[in-house]
Each structure stands twice: as structure tokens, then as C-alpha cells.
């Protein structure tokens, strides 16, 4: 890049100290003549050579990464009775960073890394067994996890530098760094809420499979947990392994 010198009249640097009247005169002069000594303004400066370099990064190119956010719910029925959830009150929120490596025109590999918070709102009914058989007015298990995933992406249809239509198949793994059991009970005119952390009956790790279909920045994801939710020695029934969610990708233009 060439040196682009803007012709700016410089201030004179005096070797000796300025006395107050001198400073005042200098300041007054600066104010009075500020219109004359302002710097030139470069309105447009373009380096065409830099722009013409073919990028390897972009929505339809070799590398791409973006932020995403997903919101969904537990879905389906429990695998064993006694672990029924109220699905519509068992939300999941996740957000993170997604990377995608486009290794063929319609194939890509990707990886996600993010945080996930999910709740299981436990249905209070006869035969309930998770985490125990005690009944409350409201009861839920909350899991906060660091989540990673890798996936294979298939693109559909002709496209340019664009996300387009896609389907992903992948595996995920979660490490629960915070687990909480929350109960809520009304006793007369008193409301009692109890939170328990460090749940020894809940597994710290989880893994499973997921599939996603999407167009541009929207995707529908279905996730299936293969791992057990609870430590086997506690002999607790398994809640539904399904989660369904809607994801939004944030693509800077």
C-alpha cells in the first residue's frame, strides 16, 4: 500500500517552555483558524488487489463458522413407565458456535460447540419414579451442559455463496456441569420451593444422535439420546430420549 500523506500543517514544537500568554494565543489561533488547518478527508480508499483475492471463507466456501441458537422441547413418551414428562413445559435452550468444512460441492463436515440448558418437568401422577416417588405440586430436573457435536451435511440443489437447503446427520455429547432438582409445594398459604444440586443419581455425561434439516438460517432439529439419563445402580426409569428444536443461524452479510 502506498503511503497516502494527508497534507496536515503541523504544530510547531518549541524547545523552550511556553508562558501562559503564549499558550492562550496559540489556543485562540487554533480556534480561529481551525477551519483552515483541518486535515484532508479521504472519502473513499479501495485496494482492488486485496478485494480480488479469492476467499476460502464464506457460506458456500471451504470454511465457514457462525453463531447459532436453538429452542425446543422434550418430545415423545418415556422408555419406561414412571418417567413421564410434561413435554410442553420441558424446554431446552442452546447456543454456540458452528463450524463447517465444505469438502465437496454438496457435502460438508461440521462441528458445534455450545451451552445447553434443558428442563424436565416431571408429571406428578401415580407410579411416578423419577427421581423418587414423592409427589409435589411442581417438580423438575434442570441440566446445564457444555455440548459438542459433529455432523455430516448434505446440500440440496444448485447454490452459490449461500447456505441453501441442507440436511445434517450427526452425533452429540454433553457434559452436565450443573444439575438441579427443583420442587415446589403449596402448603396452606405458604409456598415451599426446594432446590437440590449435585444429583448423585444423574449421569454427568450424555451422548446421542441428531438430524437437522434447514434452509438458510432456519433449521429443524430432532435429537435422540442414546445414553442413560440416570446412574444404573439407582434403577430409575428412562424418560423420553427425544428432543425437537428450532435453530436459528446467525449469518453476517
Amino acid at each position, binding site marked *: *500500500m*502506498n*503511503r*497516502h*500523506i*494527508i*497534507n496536515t500543517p503541523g504544530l510547531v514544537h518549541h524547545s523552550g517552555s511556553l508562558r501562559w500568554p503564549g499558550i492562550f494565543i496559540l489556543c485562540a489561533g487554533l480556534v480561529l483558524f481551525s477551519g*483552515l488547518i*483541518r*486535515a*484532508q*478527508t*479521504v*472519502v*473513499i*480508499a*479501495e*485496494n*482492488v*488487489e486485496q*478485494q*480480488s483475492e*479469492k*476467499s476460502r471463507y*464464506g*457460506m*458456500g*466456501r471451504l470454511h465457514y463458522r457462525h453463531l447459532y441458537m436453538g429452542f425446543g422441547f422434550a418430545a415423545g413418551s418415556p*422408555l419406561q413407565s414412571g418417567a413421564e414428562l410434561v413435554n410442553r413445559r420441558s424446554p431446552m435452550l442452546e447456543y454456540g458456535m458452528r463450524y463447517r468444512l465444505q469438502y465437496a460441492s454438496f457435502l460438508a463436515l461440521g462441528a458445534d460447540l455450545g451451552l445447553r440448558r434443558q428442563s424436565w418437568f416431571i408429571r406428578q401422577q401415580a407410579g411416578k419414579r423419577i427421581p423418587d416417588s414423592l409427589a409435589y405440586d411442581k417438580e423438575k430436573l434442570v441440566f446445564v451442559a457444555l455440548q459438542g457435536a459433529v455432523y455430516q451435511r*448434505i446440500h*440440496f*440443489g*444448485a*447454490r*452459490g*455463496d*449461500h447456505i*441453501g*437447503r441442507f*440436511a445434517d*446427520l450427526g452425533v452429540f455429547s454433553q457434559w452436565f456441569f450443573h444439575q438441579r432438582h427443583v420442587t415446589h409445594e403449596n402448603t396452606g398459604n405458604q409456598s415451599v420451593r426446594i432446590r437440590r444440586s449435585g444429583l448423585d443419581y444423574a449421569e454427568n455425561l450424555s451422548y446421542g*444422535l441428531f*438430524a437437522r*434439516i434447514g434452509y438458510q438460517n432456519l433449521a429443524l432439529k*430432532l435429537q*435422540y439420546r*442414546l445414553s442413560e439419563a440416570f446412574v444404573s445402580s439407582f434403577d430409575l426409569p*428412562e424418560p423420553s*430420549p427425544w428432543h425437537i428444536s428450532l435453530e436459528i443461524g446467525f449469518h*453476517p*452479510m
Partner: protein
Amino acid sequence: MRQFTGLTAYCLFILLLLQAPDLRAHHNTFSSPYGITGSFNGDSQAYWVYFTDKDKADFDPLVYFSPKALKRRLQLGLSPDDPDHYPLKPEYLEAVSLLSDTTGVALRWFNSVWVRASADQISQISSLPFVKDIQPAGGWMLTASAMIPPDHNAAMTDKRLRLTAKQKDELQAQLKAMQGQRFAEKGLDGQGIRIAVFDAGFPGVDTHPAFMHMHQEGRIVATRDFFRNSDNVYRGNQHGTMVLAMIGGKLDGVAMGLATAAEYILARTETWHEPMVEEQYWLAAVEWADRMGADIINSSLGYFHHRYFPEQMDGQTSLVARAAVKAARKGILVVNAAGNEGESRYWATVITPADADSVLTVGAVSLPSLLRTGYSSSGPTADGRLKPNVTAVGNVLTANRRAFAQARGTSFSAPLVSGFAACVWQKNRSWNNIQLLRSIERSASLYPYFDYAHGFGVPQAGYFLEGGPHIIPPSFDLIRQDDELIMRIRQSVSPSSETDTGERYAFYHIRSAKGSIRQYFVVRVEQPDVIRLSLNQIQAGDTLYFHYNGFTASYIP
């Protein structure tokens, strides 16, 4: 056991998922402007199928071309018996139709037809002896435009349509940037020129007073909705309405565009949000416009990242760019918006067909500086050619379906130049389209200077009314001091034009030996020594070009 059940369910879901992107295509039907219909199969893709040959059978130029089109061809010395216009062989179309789910637009110029077919079907089609080539095409997408109700707002109140003094000034300033009022003073208003406008719909053009003069004088001579296969274009997206107003609208006696007496043919080639399918309608429309005798095509449309990469903007890759070049070879001046991707992180360059060589590509500038707006796409093309060719005002006041609207985009710069071109062609009817294009470039405010943001600048009517170029006195000096080059403004320079607002800008660029610009700059002039350049870092063979107030000078270090 549980894992096995889960895996089985998962695999079933995957199978369903892999079909999902195409599921919505099932049972959709399609009707083309050529009356060919079909239905979709779930696993099909879109292709262009090119044929080896066609013949003159059933082609009668006197029937195919409108009288106006024949006249234009005669004027330009083009034979009406052009093989490009011969129809595709019906037996070829029928054979392909039988082997595909759907056939769409058939293009005479490219001897090709759009089809949707599965991999097996396309393999069978490719083995047909008369199939020359098969290329992937844009996919199919149903759009929201189908849900847009027709505009029944015929009764417009006077209050909404009365221009205030400020609005009148705004409209005049848009045209004054091109010295448009000087055309009007000379009675140049595009009369006798036929302009085709390709856009996403023209709602309100049949009712809005800004277009009444066109209707009353019978100057909307043909309409075609390629999306709906009908002649009613007065629906859809009002983008076309706003664009048409910038070419030839008139209200309260104030011209919104310069070609207020031109003839118009209106083509709806786009739907609500520019999905992938519309490129084929643009291609069909360009053949139709040629057939209907269009002198100028205004296309405030373009295609980019949905199906292309910036490095494909070379004027040869996209079918629309190649069609635009063909249209130019048939004597039509194609005016296309440069695109609004100037602020895009991933695109920034011109869109297609604005990348085509013989297209007059128009970028956007803002008033009063006449400097590029941030959103206006810049050149060069992927193969290093100058684009945009010229610029015009992009932030405009225009008519919409019901009243007026402030709008911004190169979409509105292009029609301003289309109207300008119509006036120039009216005055110089013997010119061909390329002569017209080059003369518009020469008339522009920066010519012979150019850069990739402004092209040659804003076209100026005075160039055509004052007998061509005149000697411009030097407005600056280039002074070498050791290793520095100083651009020093002469104090005696007077304002360059009627649009001068007192703000001054100096332009300079560094051009390589190959003729392409490596770097370009615009500097606000606030003191005589505007620019000081270190010559140490200028590469061998480079030339420096400077422009200020109509005067251009070069310096070879």
C-alpha cells in the same frame, strides 16, 4: 434393546429427512409461458437441456417480430432471418418432456429448455442423439407472491398524490444531476424509443396518476407476466412501479424520469423475494422484448449469491449475462443495476447480468456529493473489466403503488439512466446500441477518468447538446518534490456544473501496466495541496491518474 429401538427409529427418521427437501415439490404443477406443463417428482433437480440443431421450419420473421422490432433490425442492419430466433424442434421438446417430470421455459437463443428431472431421467435425456449439453439450473421454489392480492386501490386521493414544493425540488434534483432538464428544454423526452422494463410487478401502474400519460397516449404497448403466464402485470411487488416511475413517470407536471414520451413494454420476471427460479423468466423475457421491438431493456434485477460466487461474475458464466450479450448483439441497449452489495462482507462486487461486457451497468451515487453510496456494488468484474460503467442518483423520491416513497438502491439509478439513454437515442437515431453506450460513458462527469466505484461518473446531457467534448482548462497541477508527487488545486477554478454544491472532491487511482486499477481514492478538497503521494512505493509500469473538476491528468513516475 433400547439402543436398538432408538437406532431403528433414528434411521427411519433419516430416511424421511433425506426425502424432506423435495417433499414439498410433490404435486406442484407448473405452466410455462410456452404452454408446457408438468408435475414434480420428489427427487428431481432442475437442468437446462441444450439441443444440437434447429431449423427454419415455421419461422416467418414477419409474423414473429413486431413491426417495431423489424424496423429496429433494419435500422441496425440486422437480418430478420436470424437462426437465433428459429423455434426449437417440437419433436425434441416432446421427447425431453416425456423423459422428465417438468419442462419449463424454452429458449430460442440458446436452443435449450428448462427441465426438472431425476438423475435417472437426466441420464436418459443425455443419451438422446439430439441433446448437445446439460447444465444444472436454478431450483424451484414457491414464493410468497402467490399470496399477494391484486391491487384494488384504484381510488386514490388527491391529497396523497399532491407534490409539495420540497418533493418537486427532490424530483428535479434527481434529474438535474444528469442535466436532465436540458433534454426537456430541447424537447427530448424519449419519443419513438421503446423501453422494456423487467421487474417483480407493476401494481398501481394502471391506476396511479404518475403513469396516466402513458395509458392515455397508448404507450404501454405490451405486458407479460412470465410468472403467472398472463398479460396482467399490475400486481406483485411494487418495485417495478417505482422503477418505471424513474424512467418516465410524470406528476403535477413534474417529470420523475426523462423518457416521459417513450413507449413501454412491461415484463414481470420476478416474484416476491428473488428466489432461484426467476432467472429463466428473465431469459424468456429478453427474447420476448427483442421480439416486441424493445430498443432499451431496463433490468433493475440481478442474481448473485443464491447461485453464484463473486469469481463467477465474469460476464460469461451466468446464462442471464450471456443472454444480455446476445440482446446487445441484436441492437438492444441493456441497462442493468450494478447491485446493492457494496456493504456486503462476502460479495461487494456487481451482480449478474450487470457483469456482462456490453451491458450498461449503473451504480448509485448520493446527492449532493455525487459520490458512490455505501450500498452500491463496485467493480471490477471477476475478469478485471470496468464496472459499473456509469452512475446515477440512488436515493430517490419515486411513485409507489399508492402514492410516493423514498427509496434507495441501484434499482433506481438504472432507470434514471435508461430514461437518459432514450433521450440520447431519440436525438441520434442512427447510432447503434454500442455507439450509444460508449457515448453515454464519454458524456459522464468523470470521463476519461474512471474508477470501480463510479465508473465514468454521472452522464451529462450537455455533452450531447453542445456538440461533443470541449477543451477543459486544467484545474490542478502535478508537482514533483523529491520522492513525492503533489496534486495542487488551482485557485481560479470555478464550479464545474449546475449541480455544484461547493463541496469538492479530487479523484486519483494507480493503474497497472495491464490497464487495471490497483488502488483508487477520493479525497475531499479542503486546501490547495490535496494529495501528496510517495513515489517510492509505486510499482514499475504503474501510471497515476488524477481528476478534479472535469480535468484529468496522468503521471508516469
